[in-house]
């Protein structure tokens, strides 16, 4: 705004502060909850200020054995499972989408557009819609309770294929011709020219897909029955449903807090590339 009216400025700030508070409050409560002991969390009213048990809870939750000898499921293992799943989904989706977009844009083969539209139509078939047949297939392949079972059905991605197709279409044809005259074969061109040119787009997509993979709930819930293969997002729900005992809110909150950490790290680490991917146009 070019106008300089104090009232408008104050109003704008109030609205923004309200918005931030709305988003931050649950995170704050989670943090506070993770810093009290289990007994305090069962008393009303729930505390609004942090307690002194944060590192005790962290140790107990992360490793699964507290200072006082109580045992809970170690969250580091679930985080590891989630990490493997999210990485496999993100990397797998990017690799397959890059290759399929490359085929669609740069190669002439019969029914090229038909293939493209077939890929595109799968946008209408997310896991939730095809859950029964997919489960059947994965079960028959013996991939229940494995990383492959967790990730393979989620890897094919029409969105990413479409995005890379658009990226490749913006790369001038002369780039390909120039590479052909330089003697670069199809794989060489892909590796030396296309990949570096879509670097920022890959980074942006990686952030989105990593979080998508990390937050998967329904599919891991179905496919994993073994506690060793459980992901962190599923485990939060399991902890709440431990019906024979009162929920350990401090542990649950700490788990939730830990579940937030890797996506935040990925976003912060990829931030610069991410923004560049959205703004850079020099092709």
């Amino acid at each position: 705004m070019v106008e300089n009216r104090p009232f408008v400025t104050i109003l704008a700030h109030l609205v923004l502060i309200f918005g931030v508070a709305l988003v931050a409050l649950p995170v704050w409560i989670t943090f506070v909850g993770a810093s009290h002991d289990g007994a305090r969390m069962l008393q009303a009213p729930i505390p609004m200020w942090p307690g002194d048990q944060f590192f005790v809870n962290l140790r107990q939750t992360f490793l699964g054995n507290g200072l006082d000898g109580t045992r809970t499921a170690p969250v580091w293992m679930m985080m590891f499972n989630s990490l493997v799943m999210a990485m496999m989904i993100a990397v797998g989706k990017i690799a397959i989408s890059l290759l399929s977009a490359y085929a669609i844009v740069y190669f002439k083969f019969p029914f090229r557009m038909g293939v493209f539209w077939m890929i595109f139509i799968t946008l209408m078939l997310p896991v939730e819609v095809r859950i029964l047949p997919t489960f059947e297939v994965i079960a028959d392949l013996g991939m229940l309770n494995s990383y492959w079972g967790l990730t393979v059905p989620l890897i094919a991605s029409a969105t990413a294929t479409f995005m890379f197709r658009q990226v490749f279409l913006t790369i001038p044809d002369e780039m390909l011709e120039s590479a052909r005259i330089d003697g670069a074969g199809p794989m060489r061109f892909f590796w030396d020219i296309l990949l570096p040119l879509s670097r920022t787009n890959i980074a942006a997509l990686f952030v989105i897909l990593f979080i998508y993979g990390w937050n998967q709930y329904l599919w891991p819930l179905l496919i994993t029955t073994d506690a060793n293969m459980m992901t962190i997002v599923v485990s939060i729900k399991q902890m709440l449903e431990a019906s024979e005992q009162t929920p350990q809110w401090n542990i649950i909150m700490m788990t939730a807090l830990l579940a937030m950490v890797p996506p935040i790290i990925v976003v912060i680490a990829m931030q610069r590339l991410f923004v560049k991917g959205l703004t850079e146009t020099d092709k």
Partner: protein
Amino acid sequence: MAEIKLDSLTKTYGPTQVLYHVHADIEDGEFVVIVGPSGCGKSTLLRMIAGLESITTGEVSIGDKVVNGLEPADRDIAMVFQNYALYPHMSVRQNMAYGLKIRKQPKAEIERRVQEAADILEIGQYLDRKPRQLSGGQRQRVAMGRAIVRDPQVFLFDEPLSNLDAKLRVQMRLEIRKLQKRLGVTSIFVTHDQVEAMTLGDRLMVLNAGYVEQFGTPIELYDRPATIFVAGFIGSPAMNFLPATAANGTVTLGNGVSLPGADGVSGPVTFGIRPEHLVPDDTGPIRVCVQLFEALGANTLLHGVLEGTETAVVVSLPGHVTLEPGETRSFSAPPAAQHLFDSDSGARIEP
């Protein structure tokens, strides 16, 4: 080094034919410019020689070897593109070295050739920059450097100067010419700019709508254009065309004025004379009504119509001349500067 032979090349895209039986023998070390208006097929022809477009019929040979079936990389050519097509993520050095790297040349050899090309083009201090950090002229040099390091048999240029500003274009034109003479590599250069074509080429191929109108030296094209199209395309301002009738060794213009003309020609013809060849002459037969004039300093352009007709005539007068709109000036046309063309086919009628 190699001669290039184009034998009856044609190109069709589905039902549309864009090139018709192009023949050319290009000598070793020659600089040939393909010139024509947009859409005449000149870039397509170049890309067929490069191997980027398939050849519908006919043969392309480079140095006695038919290259129809060869990949661009195996034809031993280098190409400079209109938008340079530099790889944006590689430094200038990597851009220039890329083709050699793929050919698995030893590292020291690559380094030596890149350095040599950089010295020739005076881009040594930019070797570690990315293309986006360079100006248009510098990118142009890098694109040429990428062609030079390959040490190819043929250079192909696809309108490489059209993205530069006017001053830089003139400068780069001279440099390309010098470079080509120095390296002695057979070159084909595509442009739509006839001045560029005239100054660069040893020989010019004028293309129009897929047909070769004429293939010859710049002076041949200027002095003896084979068709009306070539006559109008080469030279600036363009040649004046006056409808006329030929009979008994004279040519009669639209306003009834007769000039001595060619023997043995009769019927409707087009009389052509270049603006710079009309000589002021108070008793001259060609009388022009002045409409306006442009003073360009070195010469003055008179725009008017042939007296008694609506046919536009442009005259280029040396030096400063002051003219009054509405006045009539007389000019004579030296016989050697007159051109006659068949009105139907547009072909030149030799006197």
